[in-house]
């Protein structure tokens, strides 16, 4: 048995009623006698309560966003071998990549240096350089930790799975970071799912994997009338009838409990019906914006056609965070590979996509800040990999797993800080390189969890899966 919710993670009742069932099931009997499932209490005093996880699908060019490289313009048109940085292509430095599709058209080395497609400038007191496609994020750069030294090992879009789970496409599927957070932490609001997903999901549809479906995110739409599956009756059943129905079910189940004492499943089911009934009203309420001021809506870009869709999701995210939801995961960029995948027409498309997200994300950070929520809400703005310094198809860039950038903000992290660096043409993460799970470890740490204590017997986690806390960006 597994009590809790799809995306409900460890509810209080979960801890209360959990027996040796699912989590302890496979091969666990003697491996680690000291193990017990998490009790939902942080391992140490947390800094943050919730995570808003924004993921740009397809691969954002790090050079044209948060890691500008003027050398690209300087050496434009030359092959990398003709520049002073020829050694970036030393095979030794490239061997960490694990290829899924041998000889794929994408995910190749691109040798002809492609100039920056956008200008950049310094922002804020910190003077951090951000490209002109992200002026609003630039304006709040003093609240951002810019990590410019990420690396991963998949040169194709399986890297989306990898960024969330820490494991390469060719490895078995394992729980994603959102699932681990909910596995480790108790709920703060029993009326709402604790792990919410919005936007176009990448091709691994599950989060919980061996933790079980209760740790999958609950897919949500910004539509108060139909926010999640089966949110309202698909037939002629009024609210009054439904209330009476739920009430009868509760009473009958309680009567049955007299015939079947000591039945934890029955107790859990009674509780799950109470939750379901409350959730039906609680979820749509969070998605209504009528209590938000026009100024707030504007902050998120509601006044512009391009920014409104993402803005609505982000305002929803804030409202869920406010209600104590632990992990809100939002994907941007649809299509099989993800919209940010600019093998060609980089300038036209990146500028358009950046416009869709720049104002809303900056608005979210400002809004969290003005409400005093930024300290306890950790915002991550990430993508699966960067793009090649060299050109592809004359006006695009290819996948680039060797060095790329992510942003983090709030949740007890420093603002106005750049951490790590790529080399002069943005090829390799050379200073403080971080594998993707370091982002996981950092946010777990801020939530008060030791990543090493999140494991389930019978499912070996490798050292790399746990990641390392990026200590330099902690306040």
């Amino acid at each position: 048995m597994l009590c809790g919710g799809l995306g409900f993670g460890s509810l209080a009742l979960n801890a209360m009623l959990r027996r040796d069932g699912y989590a302890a099931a496979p091969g666990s009997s003697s491996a680690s006698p000291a193990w017990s499932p998490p009790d939902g209490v942080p391992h140490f005093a947390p800094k943050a309560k919730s995570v808003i996880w924004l993921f740009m699908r397809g691969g954002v060019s790090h050079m044209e966003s948060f890691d500008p490289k003027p050398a690209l313009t300087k050496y434009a048109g030359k092959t990398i071998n003709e520049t002073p940085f020829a050694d970036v292509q030393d095979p030794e430095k490239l061997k960490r990549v694990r290829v899924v599709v041998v000889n794929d058209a994408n995910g190749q080395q691109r040798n002809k240096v492609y100039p920056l497609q956008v200008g950049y400038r310094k922002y804020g007191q910190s003077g951090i350089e951000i490209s002109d496609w992200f002026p609003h994020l630039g304006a709040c750069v003093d609240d951002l930790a810019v990590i410019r030294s990420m690396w991963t090992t998949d040169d194709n879009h399986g890297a989306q799975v990898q960024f969330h789970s820490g494991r390469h496409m060719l490895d078995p599927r394992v729980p994603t970071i959102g699932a681990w957070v909910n596995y480790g932490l108790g709920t703060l609001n029993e009326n709402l799912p604790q792990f919410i997903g919005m936007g176009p999901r990448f091709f691994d549809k599950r989060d919980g994997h061996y933790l079980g479906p209760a740790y999958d995110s609950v897919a949500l739409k910004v539509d108060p009338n139909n926010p999640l599956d089966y949110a309202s009756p698909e037939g002629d059943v009024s609210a009054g009838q439904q209330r009476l129905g739920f009430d009868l079910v509760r009473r009958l189940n309680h009567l049955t409990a007299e015939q079947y004492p000591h039945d934890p499943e029955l107790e859990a089911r009674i509780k799950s019906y109470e939750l379901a009934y409350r959730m039906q009203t609680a979820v749509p309420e969070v998605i209504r914006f009528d209590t938000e001021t026009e100024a707030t809506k504007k902050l998120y870009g509601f006044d512009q056609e391009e920014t409104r869709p993402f803005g609505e999701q982000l305002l929803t995210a804030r409202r869920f965070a406010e209600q104590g939801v632990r992990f809100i995961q939002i994907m941007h960029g649809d299509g099989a590979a993800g919209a940010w995948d600019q093998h060609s027409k980089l300038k036209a498309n990146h500028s358009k996509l950046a416009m869709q997200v720049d104002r809303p994300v900056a608005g979210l950070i400002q809004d969290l800040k003005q409400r005093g929520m930024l300290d306890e809400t950790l915002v991550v703005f990430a993508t699966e990999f960067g793009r090649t310094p060299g050109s592809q198809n004359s006006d695009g860039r290819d996948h680039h797993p060797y060095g790329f950038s992510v942003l983090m903000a709030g949740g007890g992290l420093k603002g106005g800080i750049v951490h790590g660096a790529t080399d002069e043409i943005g090829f390799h993460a050379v200073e403080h390189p971080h594998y993707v799970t370091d982002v996981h470890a950092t946010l777990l740490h801020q939530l008060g969890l030791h990543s090493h204590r999140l494991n389930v017997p019978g499912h070996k986690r490798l050292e790399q899966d746990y990641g390392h806390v990026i200590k330099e960006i902690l306040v």
Partner: protein
Amino acid sequence: MSAAIAVDDVDYLTQIKPLLSEKCYSCHGVLKQESGLRLETRSLMIDGGALNPGDPDGSELLARITADEDERMPPAEDGAALQPEQIKLLHRWIQQGARAPEETPPPAPTEHWAFQPITRPTLPESSGQADHPVDALLAAKRVAGNVRPVGPADRSMIIRRLYLDLIGLPPTTEQLRDERPWEQIVDDLLARTEHGERWARHWMDVWRYSDWYGLGQQIRYSQKHIWHWRDWIVRSLNDDKGYDRMVSEMLAGDELAPTDPDAIAGTGYLARNYYLFNRTTWLDSTIEHTGKAFLGLTLNCAKCHDHKYDPISQLDYYRFRALFEPHQVRLDPIPGVTDFEKDGLPRVFDDSVDRPTFVHLRGDPMNPDKENPVSPGVPAILADFAAPIQPVQLPPDAFAPGTRSHVQQAAIQKAESQVESAKRELAAAKRRLADQPAEEPGTRPVDDPSWSVTDLFDEPAPELWRLIGDGWQYRDGALHQTKSTRQSQMARLVPPLPRDFEVDCVYTTTGGSTYKSVTFRFDQSEDGKYSNYVYTSAHAPGPKVQVAYARGGDSTYPAEGRKAIPIKVGQRYHLRVAVRDRLVNVWLDDQLVVAYQLPDRSDGFVSLSGFDATVAFDEITVKALSPDSELTAAGNQAAPSVDPENAVIVAELKLASANAALESVHATIAADNAAYVASPSPAEANSLARDAARKQLQATIADADYRMIADAADSKKLKSAKDQKSAAEKKLKELEKAQPDARPDYASLRGSKKALETPEHKESDYPAVYASVSTGRRLTLAKWITSRQNPLTARVAVNHVWMRHFGTPLVESVFDFGLRAEKPLHAELLDFLAAEFMESGWSFKYLHRMIVTSEAYRMSSSTLTADEQTRTVDPTNRYYWRANSKRMESQLVRDSLLSLGGKLDPKTEGPSIDPGPTAMRRSVYLKHSRDQQDKFLTMFDDADILQCYRRSESIVPQQALALSNSKLAIDMASQIASRIVADLKTDAPSDFIDELFFQLLCREPTDAERSECAAFWEAMSKLPELQSRDAADLETVIRSRLTQAILNHNDFVTIR
């Protein structure tokens, strides 16, 4: 833990041993003794010189875990260094005297309980009532454990349990009152087809059934038509095929019975692991799950290094891989079907028979140990009863599927129909050349200017429309196509029509997937390969109206025939199409949108259809085009074939090409038969091969001749045709010059379709004829797994079956019977069942009967009557002193709802169907892949396609929402309520309530439950919103809502 131990004392068993176990035992323990050292007990550590109690600094153990990189333990490649806290802990423990209880070192792995041969245990002395061996074995344990069983469940409750367990459907009230002996009911259920469907789903969990998925049309995982394997599972279970035979057919049906498609279908088990991008990943899945599913061995843990817990080496892993190395996947032809998109049998065969296997150093496929190729074999620890590998000689049907007679006949028929079609085209072209407008007078079936047909689609009109394919429905005054597919369903106009005509149609695209197209075809040939057509597409990126045409099955969508228009789903459109000779005009909502000149016309049908769309056709008129109608001339230039003289030449060349192709097919078949089936003299075979080679080249040349004229306007195509011709001519010359005794190369007839090994390959890269000898490796593996001497196979299988009847397995780790699996409490019972199972001919039906006829199976699941002592001693029911309640699997919830509502479609077998609220078949037949899973099923823990040895039984709020709000639950509640009411003799609510409880929960309600339901009835009848209803209507609503409440009762989704 003793209270005397101070708080900061380190406890060996909970703090130290787990640490050493994780970090050290794999190299310094029972599996391996590096440097002769074992660390599993205190004495071993001291004797080995690693531990000096009381003296941390003098203990080698501590020195080594804190040493510098080269000396450090565990070595970097074997594991991470210990954390500082862990080192401190060890330090403190040693300092405190390294206290640990006396322990005996673990026995050698060969002594492990699960590796011992299965022998039938002696049954305990009968204790009176326990005549059934299962009960006798359980009773003996209960006595020893000092627990007492509860009594049996009420008869109707165990009948429900039995029905749900054996056939996965709830009993009817009549069946609930069945008074026949229990054994008779059991036998009846085991004989029903639904039994196979029910248990197939269990095994589909274990064997990882998944329909194909990928990206667009690219197959990346599993195979198309893998449902043949599902049907094989259902049938095998219903036929009570022995499990040994089932395993053998899954792993090596092609080697075991090379010409028997019913056996070969079992290899869908292997085909399911197909993965386009990476062969190692593909084989890793095969190895991992063959180990887990059949043997309960986690072979996968030995991929990068020797297994840390079990006696399985990395070499064992790659020897196991070598068993599978040669196999590939292909679709075999199904008689009567020539298109592999439509059907085909997914199967495996040994293809790359000489491909070597290498150990991947540290599990890295880029780093194979090429010096030391690995020979195929089973894990050494259990290899003593493995048979030697014997290659299997295959018959021609198997290795040259193109020689199957139905394939040859289909090839001839196809070539002949192309000849016929070319002849018709030639005749048409000649008519046109003779400047006869379209037709010779009178040849058209209709030459009547007043000809007209109108249909408002109010009711079926078979005299007007022949409805082909699924999904057609007449309702609400419209003809609906309710299935969004790309299948060729269509409504074909029955009456023949004039050559020049117009169509007026009002319709709505009501939904659909990608293209959302509504298509109006005309001139359509019987085989559908020739047609001219007009369609509207609501495909979001490029909605449009398009005139197009299909020739030889290939469609052309000319830009001049297209108009971008924002066609919307849900909007009614009025489309008008006028056709005069080759000129087509199209109006949408009375606006002319396209004027286009078709390359040619032909005789044929008019039809309406959707493509990726659901459509409602409201009304249509088809009538002769009035000679006075003014049409707008086409903007496009005449297509190349419109010059009538040229058209005749082209058609003549096409006919010549079709004739050459037909001859080539005949010659190829003769040569194939000589080469693979008959054994003529070499000279004769050579001569036939030469003839085939020649005819193939001549057909290629004839095709090039045709294309050189037909595609003359397209320089690229022209060049390709010229190149084709000169290459073929060159080869033909070489062929004529070659030695008469040389066996010339020709292309054998292709009978099957091999799945691409990697995305760079093309199907045409692969030969049509495969290796005639299979390595026999998989057959040897199958024989070893199903050997009576194999200690794991039967134990693992009966454990799965037991778990699904009793809710908990006898061995908790159902896929890991390795050293970490402790000897189970009920080891004798496990062995008894395993021995009986093998003894019975590996009969699952025998095993089910054995289990469900026990008293233990029929016990109550309530603890109400249990004594205090039993509950305290064994709260988790390890002794099976009561039945365990089980949550219905998702499939049971859905199937039960449909069955009780009287809506379950009993059709069995066949292609997987799209999930969703309109599907009414049993859940086992719904598509189940990464990209397609039924939403309702996912709410109740549907099987994870990647691994599902045991279903989760979650209890989540979404289940409550699904049972309260889904259309399925709401509709079925009404259905059930009206069925009950129809069968009842009275209108009294109390009778309805009693019957409802009996049907859904299979028991009578208690008085308290009756009064709760009566109170609900009362409260519902007072709801303000229902006051306007008349009494009968009101009661209908109340009964439906009450029924739905009982469907939401815990004990509906619970098997009590």
